């Protein structure tokens, strides 16, 4: 209650408290049960990837020729593949590859896109026009074709897969960020910063970038799911991660066609893992957008 004495010109009122992290998570889950489910999948995947050695007693690369193509049982919960490798163990370790590629490529790609997009919007004019056309050229290639081209040039392997996926992410992120940054560019606080004689880089990094964080976070989560899918596709095509590294796409390549009828678990479980992961990230990203959107408007 505003009862304290105040000096003239001052204003006493209730101060909205800064929400705590737990409170924010709680309100997100209550408002977006589906998003919370997506978030749960994402968190589970991360836990799986980090604590992989603790979760399974089988070495994902160890062959056991005594238990080739074993059906799921108490010994091997999800069965084994044609080399007798435990599928559960390979899926858990495969989460490492998927998340490594997914997070690293989308983080780097989106971050570069963020810088390029904001810079392009801030300077505008010819620079913006030229930049946009270059981005158009990149966007004209389907994601997978561009990644294929990169792998074809640099060769296979985890690092090259990351590079291959990062490059097509950049223009997508840049375009979305640029659209938001164009609106921010017209805000009076950017004018105020210019009137104060701040440098261009200061205005871009300190005043504009933090204000496009909401769309940036959304594209980031959506891109992680996409990147996981592309990584799986590339590995499936034999252009991505190479054997014996456990990777979901690779697992499909190995056993899917050959044993589809005799040992369907070899294809079903890695396929499920991919679907669930992408589904989780997409759900989470969508809800994040819905949740952040009204805040962007106010």
């Amino acid at each position, binding site marked *: 209650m*505003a009862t304290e004495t105040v000096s003239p010109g001052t204003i006493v009122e209730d101060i909205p408290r800064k929400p705590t992290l737990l409170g924010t998570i709680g309100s997100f889950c209550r408002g977006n049960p589906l998003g919370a489910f997506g978030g749960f999948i994402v968190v589970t995947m991360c836990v799986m990837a980090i604590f992989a050695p603790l979760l399974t007693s089988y070495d994902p690369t160890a062959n056991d020729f005594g238990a080739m193509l074993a059906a799921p049982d108490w010994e091997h919960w999800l069965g084994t593949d044609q080399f007798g490798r435990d599928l559960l163990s390979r899926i858990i370790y495969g989460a490492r590859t998927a998340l490594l590629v997914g997070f690293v490529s989308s983080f780097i790609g989106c971050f570069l896109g963020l810088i390029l997009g904001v810079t392009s919007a801030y300077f505008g004019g010819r620079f913006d026009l030229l930049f946009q056309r270059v981005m158009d050229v990149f966007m004209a290639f389907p994601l997978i074709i561009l990644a294929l081209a990169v792998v074809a040039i640099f060769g296979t392997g985890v690092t090259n897969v990351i590079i291959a996926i990062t490059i097509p992410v950049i223009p997508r992120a840049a375009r979305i960020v640029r659209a938001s940054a164009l609106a921010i560019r017209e*805000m009076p606080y950017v004018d105020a910063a*210019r*009137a*104060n004689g701040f440098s261009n880089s200061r205005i871009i990094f300190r005043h504009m970038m*933090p204000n496009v964080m909401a769309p940036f976070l959304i594209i980031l989560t959506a891109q992680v799911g996409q990147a996981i899918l592309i990584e799986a596709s590339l590995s499936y095509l034999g252009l991505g991660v190479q054997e014996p590294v456990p990777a979901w796409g690779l697992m499909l390549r190995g056993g899917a066609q050959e044993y589809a009828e005799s040992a369907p678990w070899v294809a079903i479980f890695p396929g499920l893992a991919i679907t669930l992961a992408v589904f989780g990230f997409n759900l989470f990203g969508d809800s994040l957008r819905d949740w952040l959107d009204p805040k962007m408007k106010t």
Partner: protein
Amino acid sequence: MQTTAEGATKSLSGEVLSSHTAAKMGKPVLEIENLSVQFRSSHGLVRAVENVGYTVHPGEMVAIVGESGSGKSVSALTIMRLLAQTAEITSGTINFDGRDLLKLSDEEMRRVRGHHVSMIFQEPMTSLNPVLKIGLQIMEPLFIHLKMSPEEAKARAIELLTLVGITDPESRLEQYPHQLSGGMRQRVMIAIGLSCNPKLLIADEPTTALDVTIQAQILELMKDLSRRLDIAIIIITHNLGIVARYADRVNVMYAARIVESGTAEQVFGNAHHPYARGLLSAVPRLDRGRAMRLQTIEGAPPNLLKPPEGCRFRPRCRFAIDKCSVSPPLVEVEKGHRAACHRSADLEKIDKPAAASHEAIHAVADGVTGPILQLKDVTKFFPISGGLFQPKKLVRAVNKVTLDIAPGETLGLVGESGCGKSTLGRVVLRLDDPTDGKILFEGADLANAGSDEMLAVRKKMQVIFQDPFSSLNPRMTVGDIIGEPMSVHKILPKEKIHDRVAELLSLVGLHGYMADRYPHQLSGGQRQRVGIARALSVNPKFIVCDEAVSALDVSIQGQVINLLEGLQQKLGLSYLFIAHDLAVVRHISHKVAVMYLGKIVEYAPADELFANPKHPYTQALLAAAPIPDPVIERTRPRRIITGELPSPLRPPPGCVFNPRCPIAVENCRKEIPALRELGPNHWVACSEV
């Protein structure tokens, strides 16, 4: 009709009649009693309207006045039953024409809306559907409610457009909203509102988005239609001048409740609630010079999630006593005049106007050193590319403007939207580069200054923007916002910045602990103070105030104006004060320049300009701006200029004002008049005065 007997037993109805309309009216068309509305929000219940009651008679214009968040719009939307889904009407009746609107089914209510009661919204740019032709939008309610044939509806639409003063109505029917100006669109909105001969028209801030000359045109039209067609009008506004000029009766709302109601003469001449009195003394007035400091209401309206107990105004009231912790009832203080204050009878004695708190503001000694800023023929043209094979067009935003500002002086720059006043401000700050001309700041020309030279000047030249919501970076704390310029320009070592921020905060009337807040945690007025503190952080000599108080509520606006004036005295600042509100400009400025379509048409010391306006445009602007005093308003001659601002893409030949000018002669269409000195320092660009 059976409800009238009930209504008559309550003190709310029947008696509250304005003197000159009393004779012709009988039963009120609308009686609201004891209305309460609340909203569910994630933070709790917001009681947006509490126990509100008023009546409206045919042919009468009733004003609901209040600051933003006072519940004035919600109470009106409730009549239309157009509230958001989170709203809940907890009590009350709305008797319209013998029926309680709150008891009607949705289907019955739909037949009332647009037929018997219609509504005009604030934003004429967005309240018309952009993809439908004007004609169809006017005819739609005629088809739905009156079941007219297309031919009948078209004839009626033409009649309506003529009624609201739109020329060539038949061809207008085929136009889309974007082809009309803001004023025209608001006329179309009124035509739609009137289409089914409603008994009641609700206008929610109908002219807030419009310029003052257009505002006068629209309100005159509404007043005239209300008289001629016997339509009752509820006008919701924050502009006390409009109320004084047009309203028959006034209801003042504060924090969800009506605190005072009566005829315009009663409320303005003899207010019985401290809030109403405070509001009236907080507005700058066109008929008063800059001698007096505005007497403002301190503080801000309460948060309706947790309103203060008892009288809502108690925390801000200078006259609060213990008894005020009990809510005062709305009681009659004289015939037809009610106020909700325990001390309403004593107020006359204890609240002496123009008492000690009205300290005179001494003008700062005239600059002996010469002007701090001189503009010479400053010009800014924006090229608009017309497509592949079309020639480029030029928007002549600022056209050869010459002005100067002395140290410690305020130059007011007035004009309607689109006249180029904000562009001029941006050019002075070099946020936009001038096309031509000289900007001499302390003798150095900025027009062609490089970025290094500008960097040095930027410390001395600052800006305060209109919108306190978007002029602060939402991701930075108040302390960072104010401290950043000091660290970038290395004015103070890092460890001293914190103390300086606290000092600046107290200078603008905020608390030191607010440095840790984010802008969204502050109110509009507080944010504007942060903007001022940021501008002051580099110890500037000159500040461009671009509509710096336009977005603020009346009581907050007064506080900020006083702050700006106080700072000028204390620090010897010079201001370029850009505004469309003539009263504010009159209050704050030493000199005033009137701008029209990129050109200065009159330039004189403030008192001289307002007392003795020479240019017909200045005269028209002054005539259009209402004064918050019904007694003065009733005797003021109404000279409303017609027409609207021409496009700066195709300015008229000769004097830019000639198409709207009442005294234009043939020569005005040929020759561009130069600024002439008609009196001491009184410059006018008109050949006919």
